[in-house]
C-alpha cells in the first residue's frame, strides 16, 4: 500500500509472535498442518505452499516479507515491470531464502504459467489487481490480492465469478478484518450493543473525492528492462510514456488506474462499515454528495447511512459506528473510543497495522479450501460501494443502486460507468 496508509513494518510483532498467533482473530479454520507449524522445524517441501510475488512497490515488499515469515511458504519467483524494483525483489527474496534461486520476471504471464507455483501474492498498481487475479485463477493459483481488488464494478463481479468458476481461494488484502481493534469495533455494531445502527463513518484517504484524467507530455520510451510500458498499462487505455505516470502520486488519483481517495482507504473503511452493518452480501441503495469536498452519504435498505468523509481520529483508515445506544471509533493507531465507555470493558486485542493474521488465514485456507474472511464476494461488495460513490461524485448527482441486480436504477449514464472495456490483448 505504501503511501499515506503505509507505516513502517512492525518487525517486533513478527519476531515476538512468530507463527504462534495463527488466526488469532480469524474464524480459524482447522488445519492439521498449521498446528504442526508451531515447532522450530519447517514443514517438508511437500507441505509447503510454493508462491510467487507480483508487484513490488512498498506494499509488495511488505506483504511478500510478511508471507515469508510463514515457515510453510516457499517464495520462488517475483515479477515486476520496473527494473529497479525487480532487482530489489529478487535480492530480498534471495536473502531471506539464503540462496539465489528466486526467478525474476517482467511478464506476469510467465510467472503464472509455472506449474510448480500454488499461490500468488498480487501487489501491483490498482489497475492490474483484477486482471492479474483472474489470470492466476485461470491457471489454478490461489490468490492473495492487495486492495482495492477492482477499479470498476463489473471487473470486480467478473473476478468473483472467476474465483467461483475455478474454485479458487482468494483473500483481498483488507487485513483490518483480522486486526483486533477493528474486529472489536465491528463486533460491537454487529452484536447490537450500539443499538440500531444510524451512521457508519468511513474515512477516505484525501480531502477531495473523485479522480482526474490527465495527459502528460510524452517522453522517450525507456528500454523494456527498465520499464515495460505496455505491460504497466495492462488493460487500461493506451497513452504515450511519461515517467510520472508510474509513480504512485500520479496513478492513485487517475481514473484510468485507480479510484482516488475513496477507493484508497474506502477499500478498508467502507469494508469495515459493510461488515459492521452485516451488509457483506449487499450494499447501500442510494448515494448522495454531502458537500464541496464531495463527501458521500450512502443509505442502506435498513436505514443506516454510510458516510465517506475525512476528519475521524486515530491514525490512518479510521471508522466510527454510531447506533441509537452508543458509538465506537477506532483506527490504525490502535486507539479505540466508545460511548458509553462501558462498551470497552472486556476489551482484549492487539491493535495496529500488521497483516500477518490475515495472511496466515489465507495460507490455512489454501490448505483447507475454505473461503477466507475477505473473500472475493465480500471484497467485491465493499469495493462496489466505493465505486458507486465515485460514480455519484463523477456525475455530480444522487444515484440509486439495486444491490441484487448490481445496477443503478433508471440511470443509463451511471450504468455505463460500471464497467471498463479491456484493452486488447487483455480479456475479462
Amino acid at each position, binding site marked *: 500500500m505504501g503511501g499515506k496508509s503505509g507505516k*513502517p513494518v512492525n*518487525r*517486533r*510483532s513478527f*519476531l*515476538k*509472535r*512468530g507463527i*504462534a*498467533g495463527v488466526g*488469532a482473530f480469524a474464524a480459524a479454520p*482447522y*488445519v*492439521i498442518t498449521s*498446528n504442526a507449524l508451531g515447532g522450530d522445524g519447517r514443514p517438508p517441501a511437500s507441505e509447503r505452499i510454493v508462491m510467487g510475488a507480483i508487484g513490488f512497490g512498498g506494499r509488495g515488499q511488505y506483504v511478500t516479507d510478511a508471507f515469508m515469515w510463514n515457515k510453510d511458504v516457499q517464495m520462488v519467483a517475483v515479477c515486476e515491470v520496473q527494473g529497479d524494483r525487480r532487482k530489489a525483489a529478487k535480492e530480498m527474496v534471495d536473502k531471506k531464502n539464503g540462496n539465489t534461486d528466486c526467478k525474476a520476471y517482467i511478464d506476469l504471464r510467465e510467472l503464472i504459467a509455472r506449474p510448480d507455483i500454488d499461490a500468488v501474492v498480487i501487489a501491483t498498481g490498482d489497475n492490474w489487481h483484477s486482471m492479474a487475479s483472474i489470470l492466476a485463477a*485461470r491457471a*489454478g493459483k490461489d490468490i492473495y490480492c492487495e486492495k482495492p481488488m477492482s477499479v470498476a464494478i*463489473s471487473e470486480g*463481479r467478473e473476478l468473483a*465469478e472467476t474465483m*467461483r*468458476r*475455478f*474454485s479458487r481461494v482468494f483473500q483481498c488484502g483488507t487485513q483490518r478484518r483480522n486486526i*483486533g481493534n477493528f474486529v472489536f469495533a465491528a463486533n460491537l455494531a454487529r452484536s447490537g450493543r450500539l443499538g440500531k445502527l444510524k451512521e457508519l463513518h468511513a474515512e477516505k484517504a484525501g480531502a477531495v473525492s473523485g479522480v482526474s*484524467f490527465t*495527459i502528460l507530455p510524452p517522453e522517450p520510451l525507456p528500454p523494456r528492462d527498465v520499464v515495460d510500458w505496455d505491460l504497466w498499462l495492462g488493460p487500461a*487505455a*493506451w497513452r*504515450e510514456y511519461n515517467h510520472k505516470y508510474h509513480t504512485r502520486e500520479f496513478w492513485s488519483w487517475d481514473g484510468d488506474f485507480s479510484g482516488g481517495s475513496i477507493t484508497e482507504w474506502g477499500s478498508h473503511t467502507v469494508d469495515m462499515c459493510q461488515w459492521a452493518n452485516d451488509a457483506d*452480501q449487499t450494499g447501500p441503495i442510494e448515494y448522495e454528495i454531502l458537500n464541496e469536498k464531495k463527501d458521500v452519504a450512502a443509505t442502506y435498505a435498513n436505514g443506516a447511512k454510510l458516510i465517506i468523509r475525512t476528519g475521524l481520529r486515530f491514525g490512518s483508515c479510521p471508522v466510527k459506528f454510531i447506533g441509537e445506544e452508543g458509538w465506537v471509533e477506532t483506527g490504525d493507531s*490502535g486507539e479505540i473510543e466508545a460511548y458509553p465507555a462501558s462498551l470497552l*470493558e472486556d476489551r*482484549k*486485542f*492487539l*491493535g*495496529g497495522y500488521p497483516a500477518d493474521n490475515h495472511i496466515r488465514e489465507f495460507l490455512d485456507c489454501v*490448505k*483447507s*479450501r*475454505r473461503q477466507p474472511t475477505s473473500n472475493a*464476494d465480500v471484497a467485491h461488495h465493499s469495493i462496489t460501494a466505493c465505486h458507486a460513490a465515485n460514480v455519484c461524485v463523477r456525475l455530480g448527482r444522487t444515484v440509486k443502486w439495486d*444491490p*441484487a*441486480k*448490481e*445496477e443503478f436504477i433508471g440511470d*443509463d*449514464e451511471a*450504468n*455505463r*460507468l460500471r*464497467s471498463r*472495456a*479491456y484493452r*486488447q*490483448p487483455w*480479456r*475479462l
Partner: protein
Amino acid sequence: MTLKSVSTHFLVAVCVVIVLAASTRSNVRAGEVPEREKALIETLKGNASFQEKDKACRELQIIGTQASVPALAALLTDAKLSHSARCVLEPMPYPEATQALRDALPKTSGEIRNGLINTLGIRGDQAAVGDLVNLLESLRKEPVERYMERSVTEAFESVAGALGRIASPEAAKALEQFRSNCPECLYPVAGEASLVLARRLVRQEKSAEAAGVYEALQDKKWSSQVRLGAFAGLLKAQPSQATDRILKAIEGEDPTIRSVAIANIASLKDQGIVSKLASVFPKASPEVQVQLVSALTDCGDAAALPVLTQALAGSSPDVQSVAARALGKIGNASCVEALSRAVAEGGNDTVKQEAVGSLERLRGDGVNAALLASLKSAPPDARVKLIGVLTTRQASDSVEGLLAEAKGPDARVRSAAFKAIGALGTPAHLPALLSLLIDLKGGASSAEAERAVAALSRKIADEGARADGVLEALKGAGDASVKGSLLRTLGGIANAKAFEAVRPAAGDSDPVVQETALFVLADWPNAQALDTLLEKYRKTEDPKHRVVLLRGCVRLLRQNQGALATYRELLGSTTRPEDKTLLLSGLADSLNPEALKVIEPCLKEEAVGAEAEQAYLKVALAQVGLAPDAAREAGSRLAAESKNEAVRKQAAEIVERVGKLEDYLVGWQVAGPFTKEGQTGEALFGMAFPPETKDAVQQGWGYLAVANRPETSVWMLNLGADEKFSGDNRAAYVRTWILSPKAQDAVLELGADDSLKVWWNDAPVYENKAPGAAKAGEDRVKVSLKEGWNSVMLKVVQNTGPWEFCARLRTPSGDRLEGLRVDATHESVPQGKGPSAVSEPKEKVSDSAGPDAKWEPLFNGKDLTGWKRIGEGGEYSVEEGCLVGTQTNGKGGDLVTERDFADFELRVTYRVVWPANSGFWFRYDGQKGYQFDVLKYKEPLAYSGTLYCTEKMFITSNLNEALENLDGWNEARVLARGDAIQMWLNGTKVSDCRDSLYKKGKIGLQVHPGDDHKGMKIIIQKMEIRDLGGL
C-alpha cells in the same frame, strides 16, 4: 439476500438491462442529437490526435447515443483507437452498438479482432454466434503446432470465451464439440469456456444441460481447477443431489475435491447431511476428520453434537482438539461429560486445554450441575482443572459441591476447591469453611483455605463484624498450627478487631505463634499496624525479624505521605546500610518535597550514597509538577555535587524541565469532575460543589499531572487529559499554595477554557462566565500576597471541547515576581489520588499476595542451576553475583526456569544497558506467554512495565517513561493469580488486568533479537518468587 441470487441477477442484468434501456432511449432521433455529442462526433471524424479522440470517447461513454455509432464504428478497425471506441460501445444500451461491433469483425484480425469478440461476448450478442462458430472452425484449421503461439491461443480464448458467455443453444453445441475434440494444448481454453457456459445455463434454468457440461468436466483429463470448479458448479446446478455428491467425494480418492466438498457442506443448508456425515466420519482419516469437524461447526446444528462427541473420544489428538473447540462453540450441557473426560484423558495438552476452554464457554442451562457431577469421577489432575472451570464460569451455585471437594484426600484438589470457594462463596458458607480450615491443622492446602476464609469474611457487609467468626474459632484453638492458620486468616481480613487479636499474639509464649503473628503484622495491608511494627522493629534483635518488620514499616510508610518524621527517626537510629537502603527506597516514592531534606544526610554516606542520590532524584522529579522550586533546588544541588555523571545529567534535566515552566503555577491539587444530570456547563458555573462549600473537602483532592503539551506551553494544563475527568458539561476545582517572603500586591494572570471562578486566601475574588479557548493572561485578578503561605483555588468549568487553564503571578506592572515558592503539597492529599495510567479493573483484586507463601530465590548468585536456554542467540552468564543477558550478534534467545509456576508473586531487581529490548517472561512455554516488558517502544508507545502477550501484543502499556531508572537498579514485581495479573515498576502499579490466555508456565528472561539492540545487557541482581500454587 443470498449470495446466489445476487450474482444470478447481476449477470442476467448485464445482458438484459442493455436491451431494456435501449427500448426506453432508442427514440433519440438524429435531429435531436445534443450539441455536445455533435462536437465530440466531429472530433472523432476529423484530424484530431489520438489523445484528443480518446478523450472524446471517454465523454461519449457516458452521453453517446446512436448518433455516435457510425463515427465510433470507423475507429473500431484502427489499431490505436479500436479500444477507445470499444470503451464507448461495450456499455452502450443500443443494438446499433452491437451491430457496429459485429460488422467490424471481418475487417479486422489478430488482437484487434479479439478485442471486438471479447466485447461482443460481454454484450451477449446471440447474432454473432454464427460468425464466432465459423471463426472457431477456421482457427482449428491452423496447423496444431501453431496453437501454442500466443496470437493463436488468444484468438481461441476470445472466440471460445465469447461463445461461453453468449450461451445460446448453438454456442453450447459448438463448445461441446470443441471440448470433446480439441487437442490437449487447448484444454485450458475449452475448460474455461465450458465452465462459463455451464454457469450461464444454470441461470437460464437449464440445470440438466449445465450438469451435463459440469459432469463432462469431471474427467481426469481436465486440470484440477477446472474439475474443482465443475464439482462446485454441480453442487449449485443440482442442489437435490448435492448431499450425495459431497458424501461420495468425501469417501473418494481425490483429496482436493474432498476438501472442496467439505468446504461446501455448510452452504448447503441441508440438515439431513449432518446425520449422514456421522456414518462417513469414523471411516475418514484424521486429516479429513479435522476438516469435517470445521464443516460441522459451521453448520451450527445440535444434530452435529453426537458426531463431535464421537470425534472427541477418537484416537487422534488433532481431531480431539478441534472437536473439543467445536463443542465449546455449538455444544450444551449434554457435552460436559465428554469434555470433562477429555480434560482428564485427552491425547495431549492441547486437547486438554481446548476442552477446558470449551467447558468455560459452554452455554445453556445445567452446565454447572453437569460439571459438578462429572467432577466426582475425575482423577485429581482433571478435578483441579474442572474446579478452575467452575470459577471461571462464576458458578456460584456450585459452592456446596465444592465444599465436599475441599474435604477430599488430595491436597491439590482441596487447594483448588478452597480457591474456588473463596471466589464463589458467600458469608453463609463461612462456618463450614472454618471447620475445614481447623481440621487441616496447618497441613497441606491450608494456605488456600486461609485465603478462602478471609475472602468470604471480607464479603460480610458490616466491616466491624468480618473477623468475628475467625476470632471465635481462635478462642477455642489450642493447637499452635491452627492458631497460626487463624492468625494468617485474620491478616487477610485486617479489620480493627483482627488487628487487636493479632497484636498480642506477636508476644505469645509459643515461638511458632509469635513468629507467625509477626509475619502477619509485617504484611498487614493498612496503617493500623505501623506503630506496632515500629515498636517491634526497635526492640527485636533477631536479624530475620528486623528485615521483615522494617520492610513492613516501609511498605506502610509509603502509603502515608506525612510519615517523614518516622523515616528521619529510623534513618537516624540505624547504622545498617541494608536498612537504610530499604528506607531510602520508600522515601523515593514520596510526593512531599520535605522528603528531600530527610534524604540529604545520606547523600554523603559512603555505603548508601548512590541509593540516596537515586531517591533524591526521584523525589525531585516528582516535584517538577507539584513544587517546582523545590525540584529546581534539589536538581541544582545534585547537578553540582554528585560524583556520578549520569546522576548529574538527570539532575540537570530536572532543572531544565522546571525552567520550561517559566513562572507559571503548575503544581496543583485537583478535585472533580462534578456534574449534575442534565445540566450544562453554564448551569454548573453557578452551582457550589464540595470544595466550594467546604463540605468533605479532603475526600475530593488529588494531584494534577502536568499535561504532556508542546515544548512551548508545557504550563498550559489540560484537565481533560485524565480519563476520569474527560467529557463535557462538568466542573473541576484546582488549588495550590504560594509562600511569599513579604506582604505584596500582585496580579494573578489566568486563562481558562471554559468559564472560571477564583478564590484567593479562601475569599471569592473573580469570575468570568465567558466560554471559549484558554488564552494566557486573558483574565487578570489583582491580589494581595500576605507574608507566609497564601492559597488560591480555581473553579474551571467545561462546556464542550478542550478543558484547560493556566495561571501565574506577576507584579502589578507585569514583571516576574521573584522569591515566591509554590507548593501543591502544602496540604497533603489522601494516598493514591495521583493520576494513574492504569484503568481500574472491574473487580478489585487485592494487591498483596497474602502472608503465607515464602520468597525463594530463582537465581542463586553463582551459576545457572535451575535454568535452561531457548533459542540460538543471547548469551547468559553470571558476573559479580549478577545474572547477565547480552546480545551481541542481532540474535535473541531466552533463559527460562526449569520449573513451572501458575500463581505466583515475582520480584526482580534489574538494570539495563540501553538501547535494549528485554523482559521477564511468565507463564511462558518457550513460544507463548506473558512478559513484563523491558523496552522503549514507539509504535505503539510503551515503556518498561508494559504487559506483553505473545498473541495479543501489549495488553496494558506503561506510558510513563519516568518510572524506570534508566541507569540504575529497578524493581519489577508481578503478581499473577488466576486471571488477575498485576505488575509494579519501582513500586508504582503499572498493570492491573484480567487475562486468562495462559494459565501456567516458566519464568524467563529475554534477550530480544535485532541489530538495533546489539550490545544490550539485562543485569539481574535478584530474582525471587513466591509460589502461590494453582498448578
